[in-house]
């Protein structure tokens, strides 16, 4: 399977970005985090969703394209925005239901779409620590559709996460999110990995499409998942990137190749 081979026409990471872009509808208001989600949001803006609104938690609301940022807040991301404000205002837009789609990265994700960005093992004596929520908990709590993007390994797809940083459908029982105090009609809509796309049926993650274009197979998908995952009745091949999408991604979205494969250049190489 192609990973980040520069000679390949496109990589698994490109397939992830394009699959993310296809999830953005023309008039969506999108909350984005750093890395792959930014690439997807900008690709959609430069292709089928020029009127989408891109929202960055530091306080940026914009409907025009911008230089691919190296961090969530950059002068280029601020410049010529429609509105500059603060995190309270942005999150309040989300909490009151005005940001319909949110993209996050994730450390681990489980059967019911719960995301762990905090720790593996006991919280007080963790085996592994991640950075914590940042704005991800807010995105997944508030958005009608939240979309997680992460590379897939068995370790990152346990049946049940050790720590819920961003609630998905909790135990998969209907109404649990609302009972906890989250807005109704919200929750995970899709998970995009380097192997496949997943949706949710009755609160449970199911395989929706496999990235055949980069050599993934259903068998491989099932190998890299920590439970016996269900497969959607209408399982498909993931729509591959078009030549035009790859061109726009390379030439317009990230011409400086800052986020190749969703990973930033190593420190000291700027």
């Amino acid at each position, binding site marked *: 399977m192609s990973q980040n081979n520069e000679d390949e026409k496109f990589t698994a990471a490109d397939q992830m970005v394009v699959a993310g872009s296809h999830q953005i509808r023309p008039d969506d208001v999108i909350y984005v985090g750093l890395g792959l989600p930014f690439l997807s949001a900008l690709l959609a803006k430069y292709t089928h969703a020029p009127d989408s609104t891109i929202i960055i938690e530091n*306080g940026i609301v914009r409907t025009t394209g911008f230089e691919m940022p190296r961090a*969530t807040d950059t002068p280029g991301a601020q410049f010529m925005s429609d509105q500059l404000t603060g*995190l309270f205002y942005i999150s309040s837009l989300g909490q009151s239901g005005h940001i319909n789609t949110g993209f996050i990265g994730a450390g681990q994700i489980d059967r019911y779409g719960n995301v762990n960005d905090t720790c593996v093992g006991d919280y007080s004596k963790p085996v592994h620590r991640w950075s914590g929520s940042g*704005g*991800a908990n807010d995105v997944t709590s508030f958005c009608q559709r939240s979309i997680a993007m992460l590379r897939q390994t068995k370790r990152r797809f346990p049946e049940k996460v050790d720590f819920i940083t961003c609630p998905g459908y909790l135990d998969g029982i209907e109404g649990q999110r609302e009972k906890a105090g989250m807005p109704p009609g919200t929750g995970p809509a899709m998970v995009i990995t380097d192997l496949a796309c997943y949706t949710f049926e009755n609160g449970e993650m199911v395989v929706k499409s496999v990235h055949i274009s980069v050599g993934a197979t259903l068998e491989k998908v099932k190998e890299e998942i920590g439970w016996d995952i269900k497969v959607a009745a209408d399982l498909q091949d993931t729509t591959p990137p078009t030549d035009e999408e790859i061109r726009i991604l390379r030439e317009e979205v990230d011409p400086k190749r800052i986020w190749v494969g969703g990973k930033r250049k190593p420190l000291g190489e700027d």
Partner: protein
Amino acid sequence: MNKVMTMQEAVSRFVKTGDILFISGMQHGEPAAAIHEIVRQKIDHLTLVSVLVATANLLIGEGLVDRVLTGYISQDERSYAVAKARAAGRLPVYEEYSHFGISLLLTAGQMGIPFIPTRSEVGSDMPKYNKNITSVKCPFTGEPVGAIRAVNPDVGIIHVQRCDAEGNAQKWGTMGVDVEGINASKKIFVTTEKVVDADVIRRDPNRTVIPGFRVSAVVEQPFGAHPMHLAGCYSGDMWGYYFDTGPKENYEPYVKDLVYGVKDWDEHLEKKAEIKPPGYFENFKIKPVESEPIVSGY
């Protein structure tokens, strides 16, 4: 009253051992010069409230922080400061929220109320380990809702583009948690690129984020947010800073030469210009763009 003073004086008078310290600047225009001065003065046992403030790693690395209220803990290659604090037995206790949670605890502080309801954090495991997040029943509908306890920092520091001598401070660009954080703080000091005439402020008063009567000190400090960017003033070098203070072999010379080895921020900038390749600071010049002026009058 003219409140303009030096950074040394402002820090020694208004930041005390044991304080809850709010630091403004969520990846935009943080008061880096003031943070370096706090390290130089070794003011310790601090509780930090901030969101994505890059140079706050120095406070942790130098063992000055007991507790951090945060949504995001740097644990990657940027985190030698954390490793150093851990080795010295000075790893802070982290009290974890979502980013909105930090904004909300400060907003409740700004409003003068004991807690604030929220629909974030509920359903996550954060409330299990953070006693300042819980759930309550809505008194009107009986439905469950999250609740976050208010915080009023003892002292808040904000860096701005312009401020008058009284402390009427104006910042623009992304605001992160600046407005609620600085307004929730009991004592406030402002560091500013430039001290301007009060009439400059009064010709565009909607831009004032904190009024002078709330402010105790004003420090004029050009490039006071470097290595971060500041809207309309300069771009930044955040990733360069992470590299300069990330690995141990870079962190230790940085604090020795550029924190303890200089008397103030101007000397820090001069010394950094000598260490960095020629033209380092010139690269941060921006091409300014102006909108139509704000018009007032009667």
